[in-house]
């Protein structure tokens, strides 16, 4: 099906490419956390700007879907706007900023605060899919390490963090072990969001366009953040609450107010903040 307006196929990609990507997604779902190579296509956005997520979304989206796109937790950041309008134009689907109403949520760097539901699909944009990449530059070698479940190297990194800093110093892109088998990069979400991946009712799909890898966490699959028994994983926490809605349970962005070093903390998830305000949360 071609949309009249653009001359491009529904959701831009041709059906052959979509089929190829769907096959990779099915394989990824069957092997939770395993990075499936796929023949990524050039998209009309630059690599590194979400081409992996866009290809995944283009392959799973249908005319009845409702799409939400966020970047840094917000629907209004420029890249989120750009991707949302791309699908509105090429697929003509309905879009929303409300987490509860979306059937597909494409994201960069955040998972919404509102708990996800069964039937929702999260699509992540992934820059570097390989959690071992900073420790081992060779792709041939890291694939072998995954194949043999040889993860001593990953723990060397965590050990070093503790002996140097007294804590595991990864604040985002914090690796998880999926289904007790593969170690996986959750993409650069803050570790605050990691617990949302564990046994989530939603399907989580990760697309790395430049590196040409797709991986997945199927619904209700355990995703354990790596840690030591005596140094358990802990997400970030704040002493402040959101200055707008008063939320004490959300990830906060720090906003610089003036040259005097005045700061305020507000929800990074703009939909969460807005819906709390609608329901009569605190305003200033």
């Amino acid at each position, binding site marked *: 099906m071609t949309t009249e307006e653009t001359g491009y196929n529904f959701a831009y990609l041709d059906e052959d490419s979509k089929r190829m990507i769907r096959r990779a997604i099915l394989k990824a779902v069957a092997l939770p956390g395993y990075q499936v190579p796929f*023949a990524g296509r050039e998209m009309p956005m630059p690599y590194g700007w979400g081409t992996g997520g866009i290809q995944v979304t283009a392959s799973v989206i249908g005319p009845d879907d409702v799409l939400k796109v966020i970047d840094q937790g917000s629907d209004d950041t420029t890249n989120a706007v750009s991707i949302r309008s791309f699908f509105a134009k090429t697929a003509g689907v309905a879009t929303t900023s409300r987490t509860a109403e979306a059937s597909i949520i494409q994201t960069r760097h955040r998972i919404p605060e509102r708990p996800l539901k069964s039937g929702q699909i999260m699509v992540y944009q992934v820059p570097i899919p390989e959690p071992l990449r900073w420790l081992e530059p060779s792709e041939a070698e890291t694939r072998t390490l995954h194949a043999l479940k040889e993860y001593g190297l990953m723990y060397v990194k965590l050990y070093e963090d503790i002996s140097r800093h007294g*804590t595991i110093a990864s604040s985002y892109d914090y690796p998880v072990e999926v289904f007790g088998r593969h170690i996986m990069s959750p993409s650069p979400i*803050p570790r605050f969001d990691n617990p949302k991946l564990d046994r989530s009712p939603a399907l989580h799909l990760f697309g790395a366009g430049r590196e040409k890898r797709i991986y997945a966490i199927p619904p209700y699959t355990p995703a354990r953040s790596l840690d030591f028994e005596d140094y358990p994983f802990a997400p970030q926490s704040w002493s402040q609450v959101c200055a707008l809605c008063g939320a004490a349970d959300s990830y906060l962005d720090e906003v610089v107010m003036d040259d005097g070093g005045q700061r305020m903390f507000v929800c*990074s998830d703009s939909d969460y903040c807005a819906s709390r305000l609608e329901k009569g949360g605190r305003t200033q």
Partner: protein
Amino acid sequence: MYVAVKGGEKAIDAARRLMDKRRRGAPELPEISLEQIREQLGLAVDRVMAEGSLYAPELAALAVKQAQGDLVEAIFLLRASRAAFPRFGYSLPVDTAAMRVERRISGTWKDLPGGQLLGPTFDYAHRLLDYRLARTQKPEKSVESAESAESAKSAESAEPEAGKPPSTPVPTHAGAAVPTHAAAVPTHAAAVPAHAPTASAAAHAPTSTTTASATPPPADEESLPDCPKAMSVLIEEGLLELEEDDGREPGDITRQPVDFPLDRPERLQNLARSDEGFALALAYSSQRGFGSVHPFVSELRQGAALVEFIPEELGFPVVLGEMEATECETVNQFKGGGETPPVFTRGYGLTFGRNERKALCMAIVDRALRAEELGEEIKGPAQNQEFVFSHSDNVEAAGFVSHIKLPHYVDFQAELSMLRQLRKAKQNDDRGDRI
């Protein structure tokens, strides 16, 4: 009340409009035409086609115009539209030995069958700015007439009023230029060096009805001498490693996921579309000793080759058009090892259009990447296929490097909190030490 960054949509639109304005430049000047770009900035168009992996001079010219001369951006534009073209098949291997040669040189033989043919080249030009070009020339009637008149009065043909360009576009070579309405031939340059004389470049054509400038041979074509490959001399003597078509269908790096190690056809496909600057740096590094390739240019040829395709419903080849290409074959010494006697080995380069520097670099890097196969010590990046493959594509590289312009508020916030926490812990430790 604090308002989060809003109005992204409006800002994006405004940015686009500003960029359009910059592209058009001073509105009192005439807008540059695609024909002008194609004819007068031909090497830019050729590079965009080569790295954009699509043989479509008009689309490439459009990309150059739209990108305001930023070739990496133009390559990206061409790649992105190429990805959306449906494909109806692969062309037959292009027979480069049967090329209509415009330029052909050999660095290994002083003279050889077919002769040395200098053709158009910058090689022997003194690199002095030619101030005559600063003034706009009067449109010429035709190349031939210009040439005959050249000795007569070249000065007179200069437009006296500099800065006031002709209002009509400069016509193309009269007589020769009969642009045919043929299908564009986007090729995923799957160059496979085969045993003499055919090299194959698998090409496919899209169903889109783009006007291509596939130019048929001029009617009054001088009959050129037969121009066999310079390599054939060495092959007859058995001094050159034998490379034969093993009949295997080459993979297609744009359609199938790749897995290391890559085989040679896959590596060549990657090199054919690799960034010219990257290929140049790799070739140079290899020549300087980071990897040891001491190549001789057996032959460099540039000209037009026929692209043929067998439609399923016909069952016999039809000519889709002619394609300009540059091919480079190098020979390298190899001292032998194991069962192999000392023999010359080859490097192979093939690109769309006139792209001599690129074809040469491609051949050098191709040979360097065969280090493992030939049991050579791997000591430079040009010999490391994972390094070369993963970093050679400028669409990938430019995208990833530029993505750090995107907001990273969340990750930065995470790092900020972490740093504060670590510093606080350190302060407490220090205090503890003092007690």
